[in-house]
């Protein structure tokens, strides 16, 4: 089961950076029935219905009524029939189609029996029972060969007899040729005999052979006797009769199967859907994923949400994300290198997975359905579109943001001068604080901290003190950063502004020219 996202749903660079391909590869199960599926973002209604089905199935798994491994193992026996259905519809099924169809209905009935143990009210598909009955009447040995009628069997025996007769007459004929000419006329032929061969005069005199000169050799071929020709003609005639009987038989089978086509098609599609759900649950179980819970009020609550690519990179040092966003404007404030953008990307990753109907890398997620998710990350502009980074950011806000949308912006208006940027940030935050959306941005502007009706967060930072005028080690700093969020309460706004020297300490750890480093040190000394 190869899963892919519909194109252009996730910006290419973000798709690659967040390793969506690796995440989707978790779902690469060998299920012939579902070779590949393109996932498209779901609307609220469809999405909630999709996850409700998953929740219901999960409940049965939790109650040990349903075992996804067993169900998937049986589902893997079901053949892919997409290529068979048009032939079925057009009453032109061939013998090889009957094999696949028979295999599908019999394995599907077994699967339905397994499902009935967890859902006693469900029943076996009537169409599958009927199709199996018809196929069993006309085929044998697990639908692999056609079952012959008495007349067909008789004809088959006659063909066998005539084959023997042809073999015996041809052997006799070849023996006579050998006796007359010394030639072994065995495969392949025509035989090439050199013109100066001793046997040429005998060959030329033999009525059972034809001789055709070709360059420096003679080509010797059969000149069949009327008796051999007659035996071959008889065999061919019997074979033609047999072929006609087989055609009639296939016509009859198609006629009997056709009334069940529509119901079977529905059953086949339903089976594909169900198998997809089971596969999602199996991967959820294997990877310890969770299903989202939907709420009516706008907002989202993530508990221990994970960005799998980052977790794979950081291993045990990785810290999952806990986040509680309300509707309106939410601002994440904080120092450099504390993981603000990662928070935004982790949230974006989870929201995208939900829109695509996939289980989530988190302990739990409660939210309103993310029908629209828009993200704007820092950019260097785009020469092709004649837009600066500021122009691109402004353009982002011209997009239609429908109610209940999730809007994520990294470093709000950092793309312009600090005075204008702070003003624009305030305007945008005031605008979205009054809208029925979840607006979540990161920012460095202290001016935004004083806005009303805005939920403020900051990244917890590492406390360090300058020792003997030297800044702490960078590796120590990175290791010590907690990568955790905390709400900034109004009384703590003053603290949030105290961290302005940290970027200077951090800058000292990079190979900057010594003259610049000296200025930084002077600044730190005050």
């Amino acid at each position, binding site marked *: 089961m*190869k899963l892919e996202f519909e194109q252009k749903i996730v910006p290419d660079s973000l798709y690659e950076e967040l390793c969506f391909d690796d995440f989707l590869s978790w779902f690469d199960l060998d299920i*012939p029935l579902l*070779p*590949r599926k393109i996932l498209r973002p779901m609307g609220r209604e469809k999405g909630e219905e999709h996850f409700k089905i998953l929740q219901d199935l999960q409940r049965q798994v939790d109650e040990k009524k349903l075992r996804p491994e067993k169900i998937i193992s049986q589902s893997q026996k079901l*053949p*892919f029939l*997409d*290529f068979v259905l048009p032939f079925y519809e057009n009453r032109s099924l*061939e*013998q*090889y189609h009957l*094999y*696949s169809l028979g295999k599908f209905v019999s394995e599907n009935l077994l699967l339905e029996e397994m499902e009935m143990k967890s859902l006693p009210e469900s029943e076996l598909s009537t169409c599958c029972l009927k199709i199996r009955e018809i196929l069993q009447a006309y085929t044998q*040995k697990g*639908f*692999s*060969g*056609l079952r*012959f009628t008495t007349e*067909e069997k008789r004809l088959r025996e006659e*063909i066998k007899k005539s*084959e023997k007769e042809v073999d015996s007459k041809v052997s006799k004929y070849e023996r006579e040729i050998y006796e007359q000419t010394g*030639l*072994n006329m*065995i*495969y*392949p032929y*025509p*035989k*090439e*005999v*050199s013109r100066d*061969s001793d*046997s040429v005069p005998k060959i030329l005199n033999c009525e059972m052979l034809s001789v055709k000169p070709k*360059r*420096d*050799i003679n080509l*010797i071929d059969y000149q069949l006797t009327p008796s051999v020709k007659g035996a071959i003609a008889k065999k061919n005639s019997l074979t033609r009769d*047999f*072929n006609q*009987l*087989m*055609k009639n*038989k*296939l016509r009859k089978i198609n006629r009997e199967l056709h009334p069940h086509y529509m119901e079977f098609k529905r059953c086949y599609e339903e089976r594909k859907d169900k198998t997809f759900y089971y596969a999602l649950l199996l991967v959820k179980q294997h990877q310890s994923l969770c299903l989202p819970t939907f709420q009516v009020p706008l907002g989202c609550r993530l508990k221990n949400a994970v960005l799998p690519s980052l977790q794979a990179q950081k291993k045990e040092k990785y810290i999952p994300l806990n986040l509680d966003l309300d509707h309106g404007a939410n601002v994440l404030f904080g120092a450099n290198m504390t993981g603000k953008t990662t928070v935004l990307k982790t949230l974006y990753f989870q929201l995208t997975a939900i829109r695509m109907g996939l289980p989530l890398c988190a302990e739990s997620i409660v939210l309103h359905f993310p029908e629209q998710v828009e993200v704007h990350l820092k950019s260097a502009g785009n020469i092709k579109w004649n837009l600066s980074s500021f122009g691109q950011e402004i353009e982002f806000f011209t997009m239609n943001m429908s109610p209940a949308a999730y809007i994520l912006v990294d470093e709000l208006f950092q793309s312009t001068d600090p005075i204008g940027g702070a003003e624009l940030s305030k305007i945008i935050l005031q605008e979205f604080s009054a809208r029925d959306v979840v607006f979540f941005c990161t920012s460095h502007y202290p001016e935004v901290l004083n806005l009303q009706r805005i939920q403020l967060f900051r990244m917890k930072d590492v406390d360090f003190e300058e020792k003997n005028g030297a800044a702490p080690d960078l590796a120590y700093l990175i290791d010590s950063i907690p990568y955790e969020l905390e709400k900034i309460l109004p009384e703590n706004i003053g603290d949030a502004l105290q961290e302005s020297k940290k970027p200077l300490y951090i800058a000292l750890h990079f190979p900057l020219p010594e003259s610049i480093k000296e200025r930084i040190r002077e600044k730190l000394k005050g």
Partner: protein
Amino acid sequence: MTIDEKKGNGITTLSFIGSDKNAGKTTVLNFVYRRLKEIDKGKSHICLGSIGINGEDIDFYENRQKPMISIYKGSYFITATEYLRDLTGKYRMAHSFTGPHFSKVYVLGECLFDFQIILEGPNNKEEILRMKRDVQAVLPDSYLLIDGSIDRQFIAHPAVSDEFYFAVLVSTRKEQLQKARDLLFSLSLQVCTQKHKDLLKDWVKEENKSVLFGEGGELLYHGKEIPFADKKLQDICLNCKKKKCILYLNSALSKSLYALLAPLKNLTVILNNFTLYQNISVYDFQNRIFLPKISLFHPVKVRGIFLKQETTQYTLTTPKNIPVYNLFREELHEIRI
């Protein structure tokens, strides 16, 4: 006649390759298949398959009917479904090869009657290997006879073919004759030394098209581009003409590359497999002698070479210790039953 009985379990894959069109490959396949049936006496299953389509029914050069594949009751075949429409009731389904691993639907069937059939199989390595895995599950102890093509380099991979039969056309036409000579020459190439094998062991991968080592085993270059278009490789080779170097190629030794490397007497060229040495001497190189030594990374195990002689006017040098036959000639009694 060297059609040995099968030793051990598993699938033995015998591939059939022709030096040219109308070299008699289908005839050789039919012949070997019949002999195998007689010798094996039903102990192993025999399955016939093809890379791409085997089934052009007309020989366009000579404008006459080409031989079809004849298959007998009890044997197995692999083909695309469209060739089974007129064979209803005459076969039993053993397996169906469908998506997602196959680009079209193929069938593994068992013959209930004798009949002639057009064979079509996958045209790429991944599908062939997948198909072999599936055949192994259905027919664990079997011969798989593959109607192959020299244009498909993957046929020479040890995971694809165990051994080969070659059909060689000895023609009056200059190009065809030269193709036959090239094929026979490539079969006589030696396998590279163990020292070179050890040197290359981490580099022999599908994506690596060329690797150049210095005399002491130091890596000078490796490229993923097709060597005849890899300018950097070519420049480095020319710059190293006074040094002893080893060049591994996993792509055809093309006309231009052949001409470029021809004067480098200190060079040892190691071709991944014999299919990479093709159509070389067909072109006019103004009698330029190719000075580098050539060897193969993967050995080619040849069971037999079958000649189809349009003329006796030319003689070909055949590799030592490989049996050579002419099926069409009445005088060669050693191939008789």
